[in-house]
């Protein structure tokens, strides 16, 4: 007689247990037909969906196929006994978190310990009353449900984590690609024009920087130079900076305003780069050097990071009070002029270097930068710049800068 035929008998289901059980599925693994039929009918009466298997091997197949919420497994069975079945379940990645009640007549502590050690979660006596069966099954199902929820949550978290890691990797690749592009737009170091050499060091706060600079020949006798600082840093600042950098290209300026006159460049930039809706803006210093006469004209829109470091005189900052770009479309940026001398150095620097703060919050400051530069007058230009970075890092007691750090140096030959 097939014990499944007994299931119709379980009509008078316990309603409260039914509610608790919902559609929980229980797999019953027992080789003894009478015991199996009796337990199956009891569980069916309680409102559960009951699956049956006659031995451990068949039980594993059903468990893999049906993923039951709870398993009730007889201890003594031919071929594969209950503890061996539990071990096989725990080895299976799909089934290892299943909740297993080992059904047994054994009640010796050593045997219970063996059952637990080999993978059972709890025990159910074959002689158990209806109340005990109900209580143990409900407790097992509650645990099983919690484990399933944890597994689902864990699986979702893992899946989200993998997605995030993929996206992160894609974004980092894109950022690195963009950083490489921006880096390729920075001027080549070395000899710029006759008697003028260029060196720089640049460390963006993130992969992409918002502070950029440029030095390029305008014609046979003139060099154009600028340093810009976008408010904020990161991707958004870098994108805005790259736009302004493109705008400041010599060929673009010559086409738009017919020259690289700093005053006109700033006027045009101020008109075209208004304060953004988010309050983002630029500061910009622009210079034009007439190489044969060493005459430098320059103007600043809120940028205070250009230092003249003469060979024989004290250094001085080439700036005057002015607004950043975009604050007032009618702003005029007055142009100043000076004549450089042989061996003079000109440093263009971003605020990220002189605003580097010590652990107590004190900025390194422009005057410390000035001191660092003056003590290095006899060092090669690149060594002087490197020294400045070393001093700033020492001051802030960390290698990475919180904002983009850039120092550009021009040196006139003796």
């Amino acid at each position, binding site marked *: 007689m097939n*014990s499944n035929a*007994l299931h119709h008998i379980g009509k008078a289901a316990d309603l409260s247990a039914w509610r608790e059980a919902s559609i929980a599925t229980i797999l019953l693994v027992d*080789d003894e037909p*009478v*015991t199996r*039929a*009796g337990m199956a009918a009891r569980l069916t009466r309680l409102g559960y969906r009951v699956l049956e298997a006659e031995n451990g091997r068949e039980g594993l197949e059903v468990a893999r196929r049906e993923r039951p919420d709870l398993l009730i497994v007889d201890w*003594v069975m031919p071929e594969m006994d209950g503890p061996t079945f539990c071990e096989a379940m725990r080895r299976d990645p799909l089934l290892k978190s299943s909740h297993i009640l080992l059904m047994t*007549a054994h009640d010796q502590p050593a045997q219970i310990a063996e059952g637990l050690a080999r993978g059972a979660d709890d025990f159910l006596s*074959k002689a158990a009353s209806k109340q005990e069966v109900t209580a143990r099954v409900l407790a097992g199902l509650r645990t099983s449900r919690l484990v399933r929820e944890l597994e689902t949550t864990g699986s979702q978290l893992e899946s989200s984590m993998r997605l995030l890691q993929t996206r992160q990797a894609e974004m980092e690749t894109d950022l690195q690609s963009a950083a490489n592009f921006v880096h390729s737009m920075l001027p080549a170091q070395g000899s710029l024009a006759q008697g003028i050499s260029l060196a720089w060091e640049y460390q963006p706060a993130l992969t992409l920087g918002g502070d950029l600079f440029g030095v390029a020949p305008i014609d046979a006798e003139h060099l154009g130079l600028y340093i810009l600082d976008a408010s904020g840093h990161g991707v958004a600042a870098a994108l805005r900076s790259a736009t302004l950098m493109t705008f400041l290209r010599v060929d673009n300026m010559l086409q738009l305003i017919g020259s690289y006159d700093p005053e006109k460049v700033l006027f045009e930039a101020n008109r075209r780069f208004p304060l953004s809706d988010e309050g983002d803006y630029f500061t910009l210093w622009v210079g034009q050097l007439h190489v044969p006469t060493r005459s430098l004209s320059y103007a600043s829109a809120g940028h205070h990071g250009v230092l003249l470091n003469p060979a024989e005189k004290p250094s001085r900052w080439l700036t005057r009070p002015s607004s950043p770009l975009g604050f007032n479309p009618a702003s005029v940026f007055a142009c100043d002029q000076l004549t450089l001398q042989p061996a003079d150095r000109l440093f263009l620097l971003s605020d990220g270097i002189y605003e580097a703060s010590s652990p107590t919050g004190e900025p390194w400051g422009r005057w410390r930068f000035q001191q660092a530069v003056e003590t290095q007058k006899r060092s090669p230009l690149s060594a002087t710049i490197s020294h400045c970075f070393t001093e700033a890092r020492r001051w802030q007691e960390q290698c990475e800068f919180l904002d983009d750090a850039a120092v550009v140096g021009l040196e006139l030959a003796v």
Partner: protein
Amino acid sequence: METTAAINVSEALRRADGDQDFFLTLAGLFLEESSKEAAAARAALERQDRAELAAAAHKLKGSVMEMCAPRLFERTTRLEELGRRGEFAEASSVCADVEACLAEVHAALRELIARGFPS
């Protein structure tokens, strides 16, 4: 509810949640299966196969539990122990007890099936 010599009817019915039809269906299944299990125990005993004797007795004990037959349960439990220990001389005697008790249980169940539960 009466308690017959072979089975505790009231306990068996309580175990079946008071469902007489279910108990009688289970009893029919027991009549089929227990004979096979007892025969398997006898065969194992004749082969002096300790493991098979213990396994057959254990299996029979499980089904007897559903029928609430206390003497038969006690005898099968003893047979399982003797089988596990390989004490075949005593097991032979106990196996005969098991067969006799089983016959009584079968008779009681057949009567219940035929006449229904005493009121």
